[in-house]
């Protein structure tokens, strides 16, 4: 008989087993009941497994065995749920992935909102802040404050910042926008910054001349569109009841000059909107938008400290959201590409290993870390909602004033520290054990304004109610229907 060469003495699979006495160690992960039959487990970097109910308990009780549960055991091990060593041999890989997920923090504040004017020619019934007036002196941001805001923006450690002009109606102060852009362009060269410019406008007063300036300077237009005429005009009151017509004309004009991809639209959800999910979706589709943002955070219901009312309104919003989402999915199943932005943000967090820096759904929260607001009269706020809150005389999130506070006072001051403490859902009560933690975020401003406490209280939090159900629903949808999964995958490519 031919003697086998020593190199050919191949060994069996069992010889490569590293497990000691059928024991294993748990890595950090959390679980959630997904449906009556299924539960989900999610690890620290957002990888998940969907399992039959009761599996979580078995895992924890060390009742999963390599030989009899071969596939599940391999899944748990390779997806960083368990380890055969006290310290996983790939702990550094897990650490790198965690750092990657949180790397939206690396560069610090990017979005700098300049409220250039509080004046507006609209009187939208949900708007608490704007004023119909000619008094520029009182309600426009002064050149001095614009300068100071730009100087602070140039101090951001981020090499790529976004300068967003808001109102009121920002375009009523167009000459100040031009001034701000021109000054920023010069300073950006000195400070080596890439700047993205955005003007938020209801489009009522937009002109060709304004748009040509936008084209020349690569400025994006972010407009408002609440749905078809009967909704939009009801929500957005202005003399002549022609807000919708002006918006449509404005969108067309903007697209013709800037190109389709440079013009976006945002909707605000009102009680009237809640009755018409499909009509709103259809309107966006009809106008040739490739996506719609069904914003769960909107001034509607904002700052209402009535728990029961909040819960009810949120339920209504979730029902609205689901109907609209299905309608959007149907477009996709018919072969059209049309996505929903809030779902896309959450799906990116669930399905990719990359960071998603969306300011309203981050942990640590976007406030200060990713966004800062310079108000028309020189006050500095942590978020856009913070200045709305201030209009109702709650100045909790006022970080300082451009005239009296330095960069350090504003970004690293006591107020900032106080907000930061309630900004990570990893350490918020309720969130700290929640399976959806890495897909969700923290919103201290919302907590304070709706619950009177910056840390909030999860069982009655409308932020939690909304996100928990939307996240759960998105996962349920893609796990139960392969076609929907494919649609969702196409949204995040």
């Amino acid at each position, binding site marked *: 008989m031919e003697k086998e060469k020593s*190199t*050919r003495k*191949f*060994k*069996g*699979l069992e*010889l*490569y*087993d*590293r497990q000691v006495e059928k024991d294993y160690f748990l890595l950090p992960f959390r679980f959630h009941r997904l449906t009556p039959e299924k539960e989900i487990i999610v690890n620290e970097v957002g*990888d998940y497994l969907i399992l039959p109910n009761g599996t979580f308990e078995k895992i924890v009780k060390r009742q999963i065995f390599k030989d009899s549960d071969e596939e599940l055991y*391999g*899944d748990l*091990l*390779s997806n960083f749920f368990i380890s055969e060593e006290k310290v996983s*041999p*790939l702990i*550094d*890989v897990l650490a*790198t*992935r965690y750092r990657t997920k949180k790397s939206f923090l690396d560069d610090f504040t990017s979005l700098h909102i300049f409220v250039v004017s509080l004046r507006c020619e609209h009187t939208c019934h949900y708007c608490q802040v704007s004023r119909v007036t000619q008094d520029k002196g009182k309600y426009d941001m002064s050149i001095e404050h614009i300068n100071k805001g730009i100087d602070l923006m140039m101090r951001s450690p981020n090499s790529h910042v976004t300068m967003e002009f808001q109102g009121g109606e920002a375009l009523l102060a167009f000459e100040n926008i031009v001034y701000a852009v021109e000054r920023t362009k010069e300073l950006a060269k000195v400070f080596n910054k890439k700047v993205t410019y955005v003007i938020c406008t209801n489009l009522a007063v937009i002109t060709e001349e304004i748009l040509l300036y936008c084209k020349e300077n690569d400025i994006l237009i972010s407009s408002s569109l609440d749905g078809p005429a009967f909704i939009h005009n009801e929500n957005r009151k202005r003399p002549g009841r022609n807000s919708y017509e002006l918006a449509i004309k404005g969108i067309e004009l903007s697209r013709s000059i800037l190109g389709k991809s440079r013009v976006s639209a945002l909707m605000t959800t009102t009680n009237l909107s809640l009755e018409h999910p499909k009509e709103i979706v259809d309107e966006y589709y009809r106008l040739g938008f490739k996506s719609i943002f069904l914003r769960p955070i909107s001034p509607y219901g904002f700052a209402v400290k009535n728990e029961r009312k909040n819960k009810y309104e949120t339920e209504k919003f979730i029902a609205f959201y689901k109907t609209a989402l299905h309608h959007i999915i149907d477009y996709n199943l018919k072969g059209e590409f049309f996505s929903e932005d809030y779902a896309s943000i959450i799906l990116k967090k669930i399905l990719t*290993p*990359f960071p998603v820096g969306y300011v309203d759904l981050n942990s640590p929260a976007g406030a200060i870390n990713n966004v800062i607001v310079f108000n028309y009269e020189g006050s500095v706020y942590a978020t856009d909602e913070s200045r709305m809150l201030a209009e109702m005389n709650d100045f909790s999130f006022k970080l300082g004033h451009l005239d009296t506070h330095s960069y350090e006072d504003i970004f690293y001051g006591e107020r900032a520290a106080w907000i930061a403490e309630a900004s990570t859902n990893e350490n918020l009560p309720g969130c700290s054990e929640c399976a959806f933690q890495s897909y969700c975020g923290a919103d201290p401003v919302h907590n304070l304004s709706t619950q009177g406490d910056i840390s909030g209280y999860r069982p009655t939090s409308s932020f939690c109610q909304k996100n928990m159900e939307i996240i759960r629903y998105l996962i349920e949808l893609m796990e139960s229907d392969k076609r929907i999964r494919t649609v969702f*995958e196409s949204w995040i*490519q």
Partner: protein
Amino acid sequence: MLLKTKGVSINIEETLVGKVTRLPENLTSDSFLLVDDEIQAYPDKAHLGILSKQNDIYDLDNGSVVLKIPTLEHLTEGDIVSVGADGNIHTLYRVDSYHNTLLATERCNSNCLMCSQPPRDKNDVSFLYGIHKKLIPLIPKDCVELGISGGEPTLMGELFFDMLEKIKHELPDTEIHVLTNGRSFAWDHMAYRLSQVDNNRLMLGIPVYSDYYQVHDYIVQAKDAFYQTIAGLHNLARYNQRIEIRVVLHKLSIPRLVKLAKYIYKNLPFVEHVAFMGLEYVGYTPHNIDKLWIDPMDYNKELGEAVEFLANKGLHVSIYNSQLCVLPENLWQYARKSISDWKNSYMPECQSCSKLEDCGGLFTWNLKKHSEHIKPFTTNVLELSSGIE
């Protein structure tokens, strides 16, 4: 394809490396004159030696000669050969091929069940590198791609980096493709040292066969291999090295193939290319065939899902060593004609196949072990008639 021949050597003490030419006027001090059937006059130009089919010629004083070589037909003007004291003539570099490879060492720290070039445990590093040191400067500067394989090349130690630096210096425009199991790069200093070579034309092809350590370690027959390779990949990524993942398809890698694709996307999203490769029936494979064989037709579902998952995520994906008639049409766009010319063959029935031009065919050694579903495409009659309409 013949890559090795042997004659009777005279006046050769250490291995010589040089280009070959049949034209005496082209001789230089680092080239050999090839003498086929016609006896040639002893060249007056300086040369490295003469390789001849003749029995005896010339008044030999000190010149190096190999006589009685059975054939020289396989050598083309400009090919580079090594000529040993024992009269062995190895083709090291073929000017007409895109698939030239330097064998760094036959040693390996793994012992894969399907290794196509089974490792040998002998210290060949300094001998082989001695040859490569002479070879590298002779390689034409317009060489498009050069492979480095083993064994495990990193077992050369510092000489590995020395070799890569020499290559970068001599062949700055050549794509360098190194096949390594990546385990050595679990040592951070090895990955760092590689980055010091600073060659952005250098790409490492590293195999990962499963997302589950035990299966991978079993396939490569080495404890700790999976964790070392994954740690190595992360170290390499930290130093911005270019990486290709190579997955061999067989009965042991198929069951978790889709999970492996997801693992790659989640944990190794920085890789530049993922190649799924059909099994070669050579080396250890015939010995282990019962553990490894699955008809490629029977893994199309898993392969398709893995490939499309990664491609949809924007990764560059290829399928190697597959035949079009065995692959579903939606995957053809990923199939590459990847088999090196000298190992490439087709089945007799392929001659009548209308896709012969586009198909990568088989490894010559896979003529003995191939899918049961190889079947030539005939030009579709319906397609033709509808074209006429």
